[in-house]
């Protein structure tokens, strides 16, 4: 809560930014939970190799409708192969279509640009210790132009706040930025 208030003061004053960020780390956490739980192979650095616990729907075995969605996914991420997590969701074409629609909506430029959203997703993945999410979003922030210095900055913030949150929880600190938060725009 303290950092939502600080962020509102420092350049993201409107709630729209914070709704979008919440969508990003929520969607990211949902994807990561399934991908890591099912040991879905990483898309960019599959070392050590992971063997998925469920069958993936490869393009050659997919319906025409799924292949069309795959094309859109590959264009969005600028990749030659569709990220493996979506091959799990493709067992239900309707679910894949709607979930991909949500992912695409959430990560497109709106209040926040796509690079900022990918940096948030990388942080959410690191904080959740998600191999799948870290692999995907590290690739995305690099592709979108974040420097290695910028990546180190994300790592520093994740480390610091993974520390602060545990101290706050352990001592049961009640929020003390509430009033400030609601007097922001």
């Amino acid at each position, binding site marked *: 809560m303290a950092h939502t208030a600080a962020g509102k003061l420092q350049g993201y004053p409107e709630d729209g930014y914070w709704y979008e960020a919440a969508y990003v780390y929520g969607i990211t956490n949902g994807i990561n939970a399934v991908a890591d739980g099912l040991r879905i192979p990483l898309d960019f650095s599959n070392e050590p190799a992971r063997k998925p616990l469920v069958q993936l729907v490869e393009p050659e075995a997919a319906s025409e409708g799924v292949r069309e969605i795959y094309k859109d996914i590959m264009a969005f991420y600028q990749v030659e192969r569709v990220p493996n997590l979506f091959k799990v969701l493709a067992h239900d074409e309707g679910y894949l279509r709607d979930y991909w629609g949500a992912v695409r909506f959430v990560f497109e430029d709106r209040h926040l640009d796509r690079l900022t959203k990918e940096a*948030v997703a990388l942080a959410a993945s690191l904080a959740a210790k998600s191999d799948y999410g870290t692999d995907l979003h590290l690739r995305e922030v690099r592709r979108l132009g974040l420097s290695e210095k910028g990546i180190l900055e994300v790592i520093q913030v994740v480390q610091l706040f993974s520390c602060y949150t545990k101290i*706050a929880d352990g001592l049961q600190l009640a929020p003390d930025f509430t009033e400030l938060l609601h007097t922001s725009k």
Partner: protein
Amino acid sequence: METVRLLKEHEFPPELQKYFEGTKAWFNIDYIPKMTKVLAYHPEMSSTHGRCSRRAMVDGALKRCQKEMIAVAVSAINACNY
């Protein structure tokens, strides 16, 4: 409710006043946040960890507002309400 008693501002050593004023300015507030008080209980912790925090959160390749947003994401993933 906190499991420790957080010290009042006047109970801290006078040499921490500069640190407290810096924190108030950093957040643009007129009180000392609880986490600042927690870290200041042992001044060695507030000086070392505090410097790390400032160093990490200033504008760099990413702007401070982006970093604050990343901090919120980490807090959400760690299910921390503070």
